[in-house]
């Protein structure tokens, strides 16, 4: 499209966003981004005003993870931009495609310690895939195109574009390049799988170790076909949950620090570990030198820097899982191993019989999981409630379970739920949170109120920073330090202050009816669930121990 009409850099920015099919953005205005917010008035793009830029960044992440689209967030210069950093680091750690656009002081003022000036390019070097700073309006469109392409290509991640105020105001007669939909630039050439095939044919006790890369590659169907045809038992990482069919009795659940006993024991025993879009993270491996000690390793990944980074592998298959997984999909003769894994799956099944009158969070979350309608999205914050959600809830797609994995950011859940709800307005979205995490981005209740987003919040309340308390009990001689949150606000009153319906339950007899009431409510809802502060997450693999040395709940 060529036009003789002069438009501002801000207007051009929105034209480029439209070209990339951006329909929703999350942000917060301020001085250095005012021209962009003025131009917003002339666009069809829906802007969701958050109440903290960190909330905007996490909403963009939730939006991206729930929909497969690129999440977009705006912030002004200085403190607005620095408030994005945690979100950018989270997106970087979990490989989420986000484009963050920040205002900046005018080019003439840059470098003079101007009001609300900060070197956001410098600050974002360590937590973005790349960052651009626009120094001339003529390069604005090209930079934005590159930003979208880069965020979505290969191993996805966050990209920041910093636009000085005078560039936002500058006039330009743009010749807009015709841009196709942003495509992932991943090789479509099948990898050489010869060595991997040989390993597969020799294996008697293989395990598929399924990570977040499967969902990000859009390869859930290919993975399930691979598992179904080969019959290989599987385990999943936190970000891989939802990729395997949770009803398959050869799916052993999550592995790692709080993984299931069956998953961890099977991995320790296996003779072939097939890592599919997973990166041997320390939460998974436990003591690395003793992880899967008897196994040869096949590693499927899109990022060659991950291969051999933590564990030397015997065969690496780089590229697109959708193309490469089918190349290894064939029947195998491993029936004795399958039987053994099935037995472990049954022998070590979860026990939900908690004797006390109080509410047992794992049982509540399991019940919630059974009651959720199909295609529901669950987000969590970080801590005990997160691990219980991962252990006791089932998901049928990785896009339906959004949790901060690599960075482990408290405060993720509520804004991520907002982003997920915006991207999937017809699906049920539930944010499972803890009383510690919930306070970290509680201001986003305002965003829920403003847009009447029907997000349901299940607040697991033990009046403690629960996971840290658990570690202090187990590894610091029970010396509790700064983990008492007994001065929390009245969460029911807090929700009501935002016109959000809420309820408190304390007794297990109340659970089923309360969950039904919450899910049936047309609108946002907060269910505060009091639990015993002494409950721990089990199993737990202590630091510097192998996964088979897990601690379990004493009976």
């Amino acid at each position, binding site marked *: 499209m060529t036009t003789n009409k002069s438009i501002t850099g801000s207007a051009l920015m929105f034209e480029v966003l439209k070209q990339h099919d951006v329909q929703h953005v999350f942000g917060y205005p301020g001085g250095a981004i005012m021209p962009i917010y003025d131009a917003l008035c002339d666009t069809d793009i829906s802007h969701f005003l958050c109440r903290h830029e960190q909330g905007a960044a996490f909403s963009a992440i939730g939006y991206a993870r729930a929909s497969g689209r690129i999440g977009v967030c705006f912030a002004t210069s200085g403190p607005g931009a620095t408030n994005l950093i945690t979100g950018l680091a989270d997106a970087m750690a979990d490989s989420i495609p986000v484009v963050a656009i920040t205002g900046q002081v005018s080019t003439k003022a840059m470098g003079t310690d101007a009001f609300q000036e900060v070197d956001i*390019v*410098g600050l974002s070097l360590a937590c973005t895939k790349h960052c651009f*700073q626009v120094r001339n309006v003529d390069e604005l469109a090209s930079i934005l195109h590159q930003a979208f392409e880069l965020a979505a290509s290969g191993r996805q991640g966050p990209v920041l574009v910093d636009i000085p105020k005078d560039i936002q105001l500058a006039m330009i007669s743009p010749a807009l390049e015709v841009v196709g939909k942003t495509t992932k630039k991943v090789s479509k050439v099948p990898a*050489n799988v010869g060595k991997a095939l040989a390993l597969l044919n020799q294996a008697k006790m293989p395990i598929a170790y399924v990570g977040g890369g499967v969902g990000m590659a859009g390869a859930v169907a290919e993975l399930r076909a691979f598992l179904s045809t080969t019959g290989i038992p599987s385990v999943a990482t936190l970000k891989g949950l939802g990729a395997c069919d949770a009803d398959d009795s050869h799916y052993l659940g999550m592995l790692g620090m709080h993984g299931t006993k069956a998953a961890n024991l099977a991995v320790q025993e296996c003779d072939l570990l097939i890592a599919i879009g997973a990166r041997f993270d320390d939460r998974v491996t436990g003591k690395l030198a003793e992880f899967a000690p008897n196994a040869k390793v096949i590693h499927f990944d899109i990022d*060659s*820097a991950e*291969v*051999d980074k933590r564990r030397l592998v015997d065969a*690496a298959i*780089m590229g697109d899982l959708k193309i490469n997984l089918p190349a290894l999909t064939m029947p195998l003769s491993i029936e004795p191993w399958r039987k053994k894994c099935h037995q472990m799956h049954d022998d070590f099944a979860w026990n939900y019989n908690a004797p006390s009158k109080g509410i047992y969070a794992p049982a509540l979350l399991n019940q919630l999981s059974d009651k959720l309608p199909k295609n529901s999205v669950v987000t969590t914050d970080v801590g005990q409630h997160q691990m219980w959600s991962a252990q006791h809830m089932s998901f049928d797609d990785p896009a339906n379970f959004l949790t901060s994995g690599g960075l482990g950011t408290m405060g993720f859940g509520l804004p991520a739920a907002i982003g997920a709800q915006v991207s999937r307005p017809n699906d049920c979205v539930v944010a499972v949170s803890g009383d510690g995490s919930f306070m970290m981005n509680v201001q986003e209740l305002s965003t829920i109120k403003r847009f009447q987003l029907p997000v349901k919040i299940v607040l697991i309340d033990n009046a403690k920073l629960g996971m840290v308390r658990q570690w202090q009990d187990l590894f610091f001689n029970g010396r509790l330090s700064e983990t008492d949150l007994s001065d929390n606000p009245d969460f029911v009153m807090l929700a009501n202050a935002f016109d959000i319906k809420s309820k408190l339950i304390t007794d297990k007899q109340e659970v089923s009816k309360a969950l039904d009431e919450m899910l049936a409510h047309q609108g946002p809802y907060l269910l505060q669930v009091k639990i015993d502060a002494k409950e721990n997450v089990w199993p737990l693999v202590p630091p510097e121990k192998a996964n088979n040395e897990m601690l379990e709940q004493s009976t």
Partner: protein
Amino acid sequence: MQQHSLKISAAQQPTVLERVLQVSRYRGFEVNSMTMLPNSDGKSYDIELSVASEQPINFLKLQLGKLFDINEIEIQDSAMAQCRA
């Protein structure tokens, strides 16, 4: 610690040197020396980087290779790690 040398071609962009140094430090490589000269093509820098680390140099090569502004990297020392395709 092992000493290694890398020859890097990078786009002439403001943040490229900072990124090369940040990645090197973060991934456990101590920078002993760095020279940077604009290439005669007017679009790229030729960077020579000497580093020391216990880690295999291929780790650094692969991480630097992910940077948007890096065009090409060559390990120049004799202890070249295998690079998987």
